[in-house]
């Protein structure tokens, strides 16, 4: 059985988590409400403009507006709408997406979630692993040629805006050397076939590459190298060396283990953000992920969909942070519950 103070701490942490999610949701809702877009008006007005025909009876038009406001949950005062959306949020049922009507928000998200998760989990973890390992290894050879080249490369790659890099990738691999097709892909039904792997590879390589190269060689590399250098100067590392432990053992047990613990926190927050999608990357690569969907929804003022995706992201990040806070003491023996 857990000690009393631990239970108290756990409960408090979960309370904070709920409060965070609630506040973030409220902020999003308020901002969405301030947004000068009335999607019902937008949709009807657009149809009317294209029709070019008189709508005739003003009463009928007014009724039409009313019906739509009702269907999309946009009826009533600000507070009423807030309560209704909060209710939807609590049941995690965001109702019908206005853009994709009559599909529900969950349905629309579920079409794209696998893509986003596949891309971002894959590329985030890969860049995390690569960046940290390179960072730690390079710190062992601090001052050598390899270290200098890698460091310079990272310093140059880190600040390149990734959309510039993405564009370069598209032009090189989509056009000059058309290795990767730019057309959307079709997933084979058999997910265990070679064809499936090739198809997914084709669709994901370029966007993943753009994230991995910049992520791995940028932030992860720089931060892990910084921490590794920090650890190398610590007494326990020196004592490890004095005890004549093999280099590989030092790298694994002394360097990486101590670097990875704080980096895991950063990774978990990063993984939490995947539910928001990678907006610019997805738009640039025409990738069918949540980011593009969110952008479309924001543009159109599709409240349920925006709130659905943003809430997922909020919950993702908040829960990831909370879980890390709770689990961290288990992973890192130095930290205790406060």
């Amino acid at each position: 059985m857990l000690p009393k103070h631990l239970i108290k701490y756990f409960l408090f942490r979960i309370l904070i988590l709920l409060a965070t999610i609630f506040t973030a949701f409220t902020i999003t809702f308020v901002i969405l409400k301030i947004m000068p877009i009335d999607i019902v008006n937008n949709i009807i007005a657009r149809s009317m403009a294209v029709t070019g025909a008189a709508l005739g009876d003003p009463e009928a038009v007014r009724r039409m507006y009313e019906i739509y406001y009702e269907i999309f949950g946009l009826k009533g005062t600000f507070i009423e709408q807030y309560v209704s959306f909060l209710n939807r949020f609590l049941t995690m049922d965001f109702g019908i997406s206005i853009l994709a009507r009559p599909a529900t928000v969950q349905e629309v998200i579920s079409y794209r979630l696998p893509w986003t998760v596949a891309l971002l989990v894959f590329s985030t973890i890969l860049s995390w692993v690569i960046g940290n390992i390179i960072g730690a290894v390079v710190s062992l050879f601090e001052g050598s040629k390899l270290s200098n080249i890698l460091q310079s490369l990272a310093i140059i790659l880190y600040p390149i805006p990734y959309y510039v890099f993405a564009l370069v990738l598209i032009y090189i691999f989509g056009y000059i050397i058309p290795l990767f097709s730019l057309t959307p892909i079709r997933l084979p039904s058999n997910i265990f076939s070679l064809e499936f792997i090739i198809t997914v590879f084709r669709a994901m390589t370029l966007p993943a590459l753009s994230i991995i190269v910049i992520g791995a060689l940028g932030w992860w590399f720089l931060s892990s190298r910084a921490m590794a250098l920090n650890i190398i100067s610590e007494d326990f590392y020196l004592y490890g060396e004095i005890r004549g432990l093999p280099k590989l053992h030092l790298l694994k047990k002394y360097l990486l283990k101590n670097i990875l613990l704080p980096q895991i926190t950063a990774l978990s927050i990063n993984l939490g953000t995947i539910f928001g999608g990678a907006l610019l990357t997805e738009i640039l690569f025409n990738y069918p992920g949540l980011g593009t969907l969110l952008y479309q929804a924001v543009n159109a003022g599709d409240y349920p969909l925006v709130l659905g995706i943003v809430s997922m992201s909020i919950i993702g990040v908040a829960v990831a942070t909370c879980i890390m806070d709770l689990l961290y003491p288990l992973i890192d023996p130095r930290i205790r519950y406060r």
Partner: protein
Amino acid sequence: MRKNWLKHRLSIYVLVCNFILLAVLTIPNSFTVTAMPQLPIPPGIPRGDVLVIENGVVCPGGWGPDPYQFNYYQVGWATACTGFLQTGCGSPLWYMNLTSGELILWLTEKPPIYSTDYKTLWIMLRKGISWSDGHPFTADDLIFTIEYCRKYPELGLCNVRITTNVESVRKLDDYTVEIKLKEPNPYYHYEWTMRHYGWPVNFYVIPKHVFEKIEDPVKYKFYPPVCLGPYKIVDADPTGKWYLWERLENWWGTKLLGIKPSPKYILFVALGSQERSVIAMANNELDFTEFTSEYVRIIMDRNPYAWAWNKRDFPWAWTRDEGTRELVFNILKYPFNLTEVRWALTYAIDYKVIFDAYKTPDGSSIVPNPLPVSRFYPLEQLYVSGLKTELMKYNLDTTPPSYIQDYLRVLGLDDAITWYKHDLEKAEELLKSVGFYRGSDGKWRLPDGKIFEVNLISLPGAEFSFPLVHIVADQWRRFGVDVKLEVIEAYWDRVYSHTWDVAFEWPGGGFPTLDWWETPREWHSKNCVPGARLPWVGYIMCYGLPPEKIPEGVRKNIEVAKTVFPDREKLDNLVEKYIDTPPWDPRIVDIVKDLLSIHLKYKFWITVFSPARYMVGNSYCWEGWPTLKERYAEPKPYCSSFLFTILGLKPSERCPIKESTTEPAKVPKGLTVELKPLVSEYPPTVTPTVITTPTMITITVVEERTRTIISTITTKVVEEVPTIDWTLLITMALVTLVIGAAGGYLIRARKK
């Protein structure tokens, strides 16, 4: 010694880097990599069996959020990106042949038959038609459609439009339907005729046997759709990026009319951006799409198989779009309620700059248009040339550049009519006449001393608004007007908030028929009642009315100015007459002329041009795209009439084919009839002998003279495609040089 070597090492590094880059970039290029099409089609289907269409500009964001939504009567444009319209899945009763204005009898055997008072419409359906699931198509389906819309207010627009227009609907026999209208309306058949888009412009018939089982019309998705067209949907991407349609082998059209489309499969893809479309078409992964004038020159350079409107010759531009591009004034708001201000802003625009901005290397561009009427047969001859003397009063440019005149002549248009003169003096004079004055900073001030500000709004996605709005904003600013340009995503919502001054729109235009189009119908002041939401036509219906008559929705948001409009009554009368006159009646010509004269006099909108659109087909795999010479269909890839483009295609020898037929399936001649709906006193089934009133059009219009003049124009030859893309390489090399130099500096710095 060593240090010296170090110094050189930097430059060696950079040089080596650049050489490697150059090698990487050039080697594959010089071997000309043959791009393997990697289309999202099921395995085993050869490229030649698939027609790949990008439907581009109309879908919001290029793709639909829910790909399985085909219940098109629901609010929004659910089916916009699916190929639903283009494949004829949503089939109308009639198509309009947009190159001639003739009706194409599709699901019907006859043109619409009106009663003499235009309160009843009889529709005679074709016998033997079946839905794609084999169920026969009858009058019940049509009646069910109308009743379905009437029954559910949740369907919104569909419900509103049926309840406003239709009194009752009745089945005379299995193939004859009688629609009773609430008011006399000789235009009602347009609601069932596919002219330029599809729903919400016109209605489709929905299958009764499917929809009658539906309890909640809001939740129903109608997937897979049951169609009347020659294709059925096979598969759709869950993320809406593509839709694959397969030819229906037992289609009623093949049996009844002998039409069998050539492509076995049609793939509609969303590529997301023009760049990607260019690259895809250059790689022959795309067969048809629309480009903007910037990108069309790129694709014509990159792919020798790319065909524009006149194959690879002048003119590439297709200028027969039904809409004209206008800058619409918020005429309820001061100072835009003043005709002088509107004209002054018109004269401050230099159309030659706009022409140049849209110009492509071959010399084709937009068509300058002083009137909100489409510039093609017969509207050009009837109205634009017809109002020439009127137009000349308004300072028309009498000495346009010769290249613009030549261009107009090639298109068969009146080369004397270009646009208003860029006349800043006159504009200045007009503004001063209403009390405006220039401040010391050169900016215009309102009489009360405030700076004259114009809030110009535009859609971001509409490629035709760009760069027009930017150029106009720039020119007005040069003239001393403070322009605030806003490019807004939720444009329509903004328009309906009435809080803008000038908006980019396309309320003008027209079809190759005698009547202009629907917009003047709403100009009647009876539409301006307090409770109404103003339909989007620039508020002409409210112009000149006292502010208290203006709808509250408007008054809530803007301060409505008092306006003197002496022609208000005249306009109302004209609109009444316009509504009562059938579209095929020659008397309508004079009415429209008068309407246009009023419009011209008060300059409610600045009609800037008829757009030049660049519809590019890739003839690598599919040939027979409609061209200037073989103008059998409209080339717009997102409109319903694109079905006829599909029917005109045949495979080239270059791509492997398996199941596509080698011949195009042209529409038989007998299907198209002149747009002259029949007028009868009795329902057709009651008296089989239909009495047609002989209302022949007595105006003789000059046939377009396109073909004969082409040879007189010097066309610019498109340069040969270079195998190695040097400039790009140099760009890349320079970028790496900069990066390399910085990197090298760092490396050297550390070495010290």
